[in-house]
């Protein structure tokens, strides 16, 4: 536990907050137009709310909760396609646990399981591959979900499946890639994002150089940060110093985990198995160019959509839901008219309520009562 505790020590957190207060006084921002820092990753959002870090910040700095929660941006139509496949005779459908409760138009995978579909929670795609080997008479489908954090594991698993000739194993590809989405956010006029805290885990794979365009082309400072309170606050401090100095650089706060070069072996595996091309749909954000992740030709035999040909669907969110505005910093979760009675963790209406790491879900979980009072 020492490893966690030293990044949470209350006295050091309070010290850092004091220093941050002193530095923030020199920023040109005020409470009406604060310095807006987007934390890209759902893990960051969760930690910010859990530890109450947003409440400790000076009033001229605020967090905007970004699109880095893969479950949140998962379109409902994709879940419906998964349910269609999972409900077929002879299929074992394997998924990470956090996708189980995500509602599609036709219910969730959990509902499908209750209706009799063989849906199983796995912790690794390798577990799904083992199931396929152990059940040669069944068709085993792995729901590949997530950013560059989970893509290498899926890639390595598919490599193994190909080497071992496992032909009853398939992958439903819902992998997504982070950078086109950040670019698309920055291309929106009046996006309100002044600086970025970039996610530690994705950066561990893609490296810090991948973000250079954000600093160089879009002139926004960016710090790769860890997930503990001191990591996040130190990241904020580094951003404040950059803004104060009028700089926009890519910096790495999370050196104990993230090498600047990333992980080239993981990238090699990804490049062999996945190709990034064409647009893809993001729940809450719409269609984003060049963000589609597909299997390369040698791996297309494992493509669950090719094999099962589920019906393609497009399901639209309620126009009242302000998920997109929250994601781009135009409003806070509490400003959405649906939040609370109509959209809550038990009845998730919008994208950001769906996963526990979504900004609205985290807000609801940790704040609802406080703000109501």
């Amino acid at each position: 536990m020492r490893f966690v505790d030293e990044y949470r020590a209350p006295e050091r957190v309070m010290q850092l907050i004091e220093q941050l207060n002193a530095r923030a006084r020199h920023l040109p921002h005020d409470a009406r137009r604060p310095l807006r820092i987007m934390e890209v990753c759902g893990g960051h959002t969760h930690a910010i709310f859990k530890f109450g870090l947003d409440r400790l910040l000076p009033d001229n700095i605020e967090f905007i909760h970004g699109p880095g929660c893969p479950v949140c941006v998962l379109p409902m139509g994709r879940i419906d396609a998964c349910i269609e496949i999972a409900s077929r005779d002879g299929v074992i459908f394997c998924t990470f646990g956090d996708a189980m409760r995500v509602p599609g138009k036709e219910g969730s995978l959990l509902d499908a399981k209750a209706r009799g579909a063989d849906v199983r929670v796995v912790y690794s795609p390798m577990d799904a591959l083992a199931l396929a080997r152990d059940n040669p008479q069944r068709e085993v489908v792995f729901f590949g979900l997530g950013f560059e954090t989970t893509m290498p594991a899926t890639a390595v698993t598919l490599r193994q499946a190909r080497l071992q000739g496992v032909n009853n194993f398939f992958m439903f590809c819902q992998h997504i890639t982070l950078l086109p989405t950040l670019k698309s956010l920055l291309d929106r006029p009046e996006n309100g994002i002044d600086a970025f805290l970039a996610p530690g885990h994705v950066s561990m794979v893609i490296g810090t150089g991948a973000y250079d365009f954000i600093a160089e082309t879009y002139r926004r400072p960016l710090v790769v940060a860890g997930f503990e309170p001191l990591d996040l606050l130190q990241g904020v401090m580094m951003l404040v110093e950059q803004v104060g100095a009028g700089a926009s650089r890519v910096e790495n706060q999370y050196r104990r985990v993230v090498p600047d070069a990333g992980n080239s072996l993981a990238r090699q595996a990804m490049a062999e198995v996945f190709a990034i091309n064409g647009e893809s749909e993001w729940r809450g954000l719409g269609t984003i160019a060049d963000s589609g992740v597909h299997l390369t030709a040698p791996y297309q035999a494992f493509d669950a959509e090719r094999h099962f040909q589920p019906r393609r669907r497009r399901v639209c969110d309620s126009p009242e839901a302000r998920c997109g505005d929250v994601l781009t910093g135009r409003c806070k979760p509490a400003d959405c008219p649906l939040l609370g009675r109509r959209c809550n963790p038990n009845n998730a209406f919008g994208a950001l309520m769906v996963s526990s790491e979504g900004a609205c879900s985290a807000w609801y979980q940790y704040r609802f009562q406080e703000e109501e009072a």
Partner: protein
Amino acid sequence: MSTVTLAQGSGGRAMQKLIATLFMAAFDNPLLATQEDQARIPLHLLNESGDRLAFSTDSYVIDPLSFPGGDIGKLAVCGTANDIAVGGATPRWLSCGFILEEGLEMATLESVVRSMAATAREAGIAIVTGDTKVVPRGAADKLFINTAGIGVIPAGLEWGAARLQPGDRLLVSGTLGDHGATILNLREQLGLEGELVSDCALLAPLISSLRDMPGIRAMRDATRGGVNAVAHEFAAASGCGIELEERALPLKPAVRGVCELLGLDALNFANEGKLVIGVAANQAQRLLERLRAHPLGRDAAIVGEVVARRGVRLSGFYGVQRTLDLPHSEPLPRIC
């Protein structure tokens, strides 16, 4: 290898033999030995110890059947006995219904029954009536147990959640989430080693050492849903709010490890041998000392307070309060 057959639940000779050789022998006591269709408990035994009957039931479906610190048999005795004991009663008599899956290894059943008998005997509880059903393979998973129990509440003892009032302190009798973390580790094959042991225990001896303590308002054992669920029950029953202090919560390092690893909160983890007690503020320190003097309460701590403002919240390490929502569903089914 001997296994359970459908015939053993059919009411015929096979069932008689199972009852005589296994259950009667293990649970052996005078009330059971009469072999009537019901246990006949003399009223004077009840009248002597109080003025109200405490009566409770629970079913046990835990998977896996045995785990570090206990098994389904021990759990089936402790769980129901604890529900009776937290009302202030001494648990005395238990019923026990078995639902067995055809094909269950007889050795498994025997070991569960032995464990029940030993737990009950140690606590002075008699298993006085029972039932056995066998269902076809696949219609149940190995072995389910239902127990119901009775005890008597001493006159004048009025513990109840509705009596909590603003200013009262909340105590826990020990570390949080040991049972939940142990089962999670086994079930999900996390492979964590170390001190992950279920806290499954009979709380009656600890509780009986507290009966003469003034100022106790309410007591619950924090099982499924953990201490958070009890806090919500206390809040609802009293119409007050509950505020917990994060830095006061006692946690074993191994349990914290599981929580950190999986992003879960030990406040929501099941316990099988932990009390949550609401007590008048001026008695909190005395109660804490009394709890700590007992082996089952060594790690007791004052963890929070009853407040007028409704809702359940937690003050974090940096002084920021956050809502403690009750999770939508139990993160882990079949935990007890």
